[in-house]
């Protein structure tokens, strides 16, 4: 990326959104480079949809500016922004056919009938629904409605493509297929896309950049793997599905004590800030698949003895829950590496220094 890309794209500066006493979005600063697939990820009520609506121009921020390609668009009304948006309910116009729905924005712009028909055919081709322009929207399946909503949003070749959990109503299989299709479509068109979702798997597998949000604030911004490897705090770690979070106390340098045992940490540093001072409280996080498990009590560096409480076989993997001094550590192994333990056995978990990540509260 050249120097020019620093100012290109969408920039949010100090965005606040207040509803009475409630602060739905609080001091959001984001720079989204052009051509990327960005996910706003967070639990319901975290402010991700409100932020998307502010970008679309459907809500006015209480404070802050929205800039696109170095132009301030904060006060520009939604209908003058030319951003394509797909709503959670899809919001297809029930009185219009598939073709008329897709051509709606072109009709508003006064594009003539022949050009409209050409564009509709081209878009139906793009979403793999050729020849269905005459259908009525009530005659479509869930997946087809989805495609029509996408095609309609793309008709004006928008600068930004905004998606507000459009896949959440689909069943699991169709949903995965649409995820792949949507990602391929975005790559082909090279359009900057923002997808709002509460599904961490969806965010992790689809996006170039993930924006994790909670309680109206951005918790972490980064590529999916970065967020997975180096979560910025325990909320992010928990939300993206890392279940092992252990309270720890710093003991100088890279050493710390966890559940009474001495540990060293050589893994990647947390995404933000330096290491806390000696005696400081931190959270040690480790992904379940990085934990090693041995039968019986063994001592050694980064090892914790405990009792197996539960072994859960989920087919593709085996999850073993070990209680170590009141804290639970989960280990995930492939069926062929199934540890020779069962519930009630003594066992030892090893948390390799290079896989441990320290989180500040």
């Amino acid at each position, binding site marked *: 990326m050249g120097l020019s890309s620093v100012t290109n794209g969408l920039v949010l500066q100090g965005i606040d959104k207040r509803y009475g006493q409630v602060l739905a979005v609080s001091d959001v600063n984001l720079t989204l480079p052009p051509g990327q697939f960005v996910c706003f990820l967070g639990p319901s009520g975290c402010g991700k949809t409100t932020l998307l609506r502010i970008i*679309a*121009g*459907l809500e006015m921020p209480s404070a802050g500016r929205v800039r696109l390609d170095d132009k301030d668009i904060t006060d520009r*009304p*939604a*209908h*003058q*922004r*030319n*951003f*394509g*948006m797909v*709503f*959670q*309910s*899809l*919001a*297809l*116009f*029930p*009185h219009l056919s598939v073709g008329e729905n897709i051509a*709606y*924005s072109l*009709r*508003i*712009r006064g594009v003539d009938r022949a050009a409209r028909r050409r564009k509709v055919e081209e878009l139906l081709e793009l979403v793999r629904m050729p020849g269905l322009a005459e259908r*009525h929207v*009530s005659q479509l399946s869930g997946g087809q409605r989805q495609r029509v909503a996408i095609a*309609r*949003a793309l*008709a*004006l070749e928008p600068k930004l493509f*905004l998606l507000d959990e459009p896949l959440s109503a689909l069943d699991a299989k169709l949903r995965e297929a649409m995820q792949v299709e949507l990602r391929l479509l975005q790559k082909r068109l090279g359009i900057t896309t923002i997808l709002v979702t509460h599904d961490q798997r969806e965010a992790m597998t689809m996006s170039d950049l993930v924006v994790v949000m909670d309680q109206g604030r951005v918790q972490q911004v980064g590529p999916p793997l970065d967020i997975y490897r180096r979560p910025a705090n325990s909320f992010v770690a928990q939300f993206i599905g890392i279940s092992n979070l252990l309270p720890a106390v710093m003991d100088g340098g890279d050493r710390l004590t966890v559940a009474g045992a001495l540990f060293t940490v050589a893994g990647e540093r947390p995404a933000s800030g330096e290491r806390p001072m000696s005696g400081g409280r931190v959270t040690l996080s480790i992904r379940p698949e990085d934990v090693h498990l041995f039968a019986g009590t063994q001592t050694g560096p980064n090892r914790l003895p405990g009792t197996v409480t539960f072994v859960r076989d989920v087919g593709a993997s085996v999850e073993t829950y070990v209680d170590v001094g009141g804290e639970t550590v989960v280990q995930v192994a492939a069926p062929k590496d199934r540890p020779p333990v069962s519930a009630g056995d003594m066992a030892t978990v090893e948390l390799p220094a290079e896989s441990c990540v320290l989180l500040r509260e």
Partner: protein
Amino acid sequence: MSEVRPASGGLLPLIYPSVMLGVFFLVPFGIMLAVSFFHRIEGGFYEPAFELANYQRFLSAFFLEALGISLLIAGMTAVICVVLGFPFTYLLTRLRRRHQVLWLVLLLSVLSLSEVIIGFTWSVLLSRTAGLSNLLVWIGLMERPDAWTPGLTAVTLGLVYLGLPYTVLVLYPPLSRLEPDIPEAARTLGASPIRTFFTVIVPGQRRAILSALVMLFVFTLGAYVIPQVLGGPPQWTLAVRITDQALYQSNLPFAAAMAIFLMVVSLGLIGLVLLLGRERQRAA
């Protein structure tokens, strides 16, 4: 399980409504239908007969004109009510729940007023001596006070006032079910709020608008007090003519024939709308 129950038990609950319907609707209607074919005795009552003379009288220019003015007033009132009521109801459904309830209570309180009171109130408001024109004179917009009643405008105004709360009540349920996503989607696709209203909201509510128009049309077609109080003889609708014939001219057979005619026109219109609605559904 219900198949085990004897058939007579299934019919038993039907007896009460059919007796009620028979006694209070079918029998009086039958009497009226019969009377409409009876022979009138000048200056007196009527005697049983079967003649079409009462229906033939419709073909005179005088009664065709009365029918025309009835249809015109009903049509105008229906259109004005929907044109005023639709945007009002749409904006009402976009308000907060608490404010919506307040407005609806206000509208319902208008419904509690008697048609007679509304009629006479408007006749005072539109009169020369105490009416609104005095206000316009006072602020200098008119030279001298004028009487706006009786007349077509006064009748229409009164009927619109009466019909507007019904319009809102009929349009409120479908409009409040309209998802806010729909107009918002139109906004993101480049339509200004006004264009969104005319390209998405109005066409999306075609059926609700159509049924509101029909309801108001039929409702106004039967209006009697307002045209009587606010209109002169040229604005007298069929309903007024029926009253006139029945009460003042003692011509019950002719009044009955007109009432039947009015009902046939109303039913015809409702049927037409049902037909249109079904065709649209088939097209959908």
